[in-house]
């Protein structure tokens, strides 16, 4: 049974990673092709570093992901706290369902609806650029919010509601009680929510496509607009680098975690 489940996992992860490996392989392609491999070379990495646009797009993607995740985390955490304490059943139900709408709605509909709104408002205000970084930030925050709220909510439910009261009995002000007790309790949920929001924002293409403006193009849009010509391996090189960095980070986190857990173990024994 165990061997079977292991084999199954290896198979699935294998299929998941084969296209990634192909992508890495072709980033080292000598030829200008994403289809046939001509030989090993670092040509596309050189090309990538002389291509400012790709890095600007990458930078934009990261800025947008961090900002929208941060904004969504703040609003979302507050919202979760507020919704948790809501008494009126109907208001609560309405807010709950509306919160889920951007998550359940097809991305293309969310993107289109936002574009229609932004362009209309921009037209009303006679803006020269009604689509900008800010519209993308709004759009990304909107679809990130449900993920934050849904990650924080269960932590609030699990939390013993007498805990903040106990803290206040012990002399905390309400503010202190919130930061020392409640926030502490729901922090894992907040972090998960922020991570989730960051991931969603990084991965989003459809909503960005409809809400991106002139002065702010993210990586997916950059790739999509390579349409007139072709996708060259330097994009693959960029993704290989990104993947390498992510793997490195993961490795560090894993190492730290295992370090921590062994420390804890030792501490427990001592």
């Amino acid at each position: 049974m165990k061997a079977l489940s292991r084999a199954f996992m290896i198979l699935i992860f294998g299929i998941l990673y084969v296209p990634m490996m192909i992508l890495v392989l072709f980033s080292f392609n000598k030829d200008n092709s994403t289809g046939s491999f001509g030989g090993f070379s670092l040509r596309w990495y050189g090309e990538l570093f002389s291509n400012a646009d790709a890095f600007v797009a990458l930078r934009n993607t990261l800025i947008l992901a961090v900002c929208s995740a941060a904004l969504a985390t703040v609003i979302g955490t507050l919202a979760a706290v507020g919704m948790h304490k809501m008494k009126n059943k109907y208001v609560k139900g309405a807010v709950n369902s509306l919160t889920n709408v951007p998550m359940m709605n097809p991305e293309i509909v969310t993107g289109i609806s936002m574009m229609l709104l932004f362009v209309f408002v921009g037209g009303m205000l006679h803006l020269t650029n009604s689509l900008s970084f800010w519209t993308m930030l709004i759009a990304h925050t909107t679809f990130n919010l449900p993920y934050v709220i849904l990650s924080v909510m269960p932590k609030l439910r699990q939390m013993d509601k007498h805990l903040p009261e106990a803290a206040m009995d012990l002399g905390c002000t309400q503010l202190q009680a919130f930061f020392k007790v409640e926030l502490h309790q729901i922090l894992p949920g907040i972090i998960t929510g922020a991570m989730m929001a960051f991931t969603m924002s990084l991965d989003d293409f459809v909503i960005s496509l409809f809400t991106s403006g002139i002065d702010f193009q993210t990586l997916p849009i950059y790739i999509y607009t390579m349409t007139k010509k072709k996708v060259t391996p330097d994009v693959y090189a960029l993704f290989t680098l990104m993947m390498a960095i992510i793997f490195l980070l993961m490795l560090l986190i894993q190492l730290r975690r295992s370090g921590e857990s062994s420390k804890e173990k030792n501490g427990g024994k001592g």
Partner: protein
Amino acid sequence: MNKNIAEAVPPPERKRVKLPIFSEIAAVPHMVWLALFVVLPLIFVVYYAFTDIKGDFTFANIAALSQHAGTFLTSVCYALIATAICLLIGYPLAFAISRASAKRQGLLIMLLMIPMWMNLLIRTYSLMAILDDGGIINGLLSAVGLPELHIIGTAGAVIFGMVYDFFPYMVLPIYSVMTKQDTRLIEAAYDLGCNRLSAHFKVTLPLSVPGIVSGITMVFVPSISTFYISQKLGGGTKELIGDTIERQINNPATRNVGAAISLVMMILILISVTVMNKFSDDDDKGGVII
């Protein structure tokens, strides 16, 4: 312990000033946000769906939908199959991960999430490089003397693309529900005479339903509305409803028809998702996502 003490000894009546920020008021920014950026945009979609290019009220856009019924049916079928495959693969995978050691679980989940950080476009593009007639699979086949396979442009390619791109979204919610399950329940089932298999189907599976429902939603919705996957892997000859919407919206002359299709698709999806959520009669939906 805490709870017992707190209940046994009622706190002394002290006047506390309740700061509004820790009550319902905290949700106000979110509610304003919802009104401005969720409800209002949808009103715009409705407005466009019921007006013509000059802004006059009309039902013509809705009437024009009938010619897209076939495309819509195709999309539903593709998405349904992709979702079913994701579930068939994703459920055992989630189960296997949730039973791995805690340290390995973190690693496996990370491995599952990394592809999501690599952009969908580039993942799909590399799939194309593999599946194409002159791609890597056919290169290998012809190297060993087998006949070439024609994959790109078939329904199979599109469905494979959907499964490949979206199946982490199936695994994650199921996994997160499974890890939260109390393992003592399984032990209790064993004690009551269940074998492994029946314990799984009587305890683990029913408890995982919220995760499964969430996973189905998260795979089905992007699958039914995708346009990039069908463009690249379907060769543009397999039209899905997402392609239709994208083309219509990007053309100012047909934007209103596009809005009408979006509106109808949205309503249908929201209804089916709501109905499906009824099956996960669990109040704790929150933890389902991750």
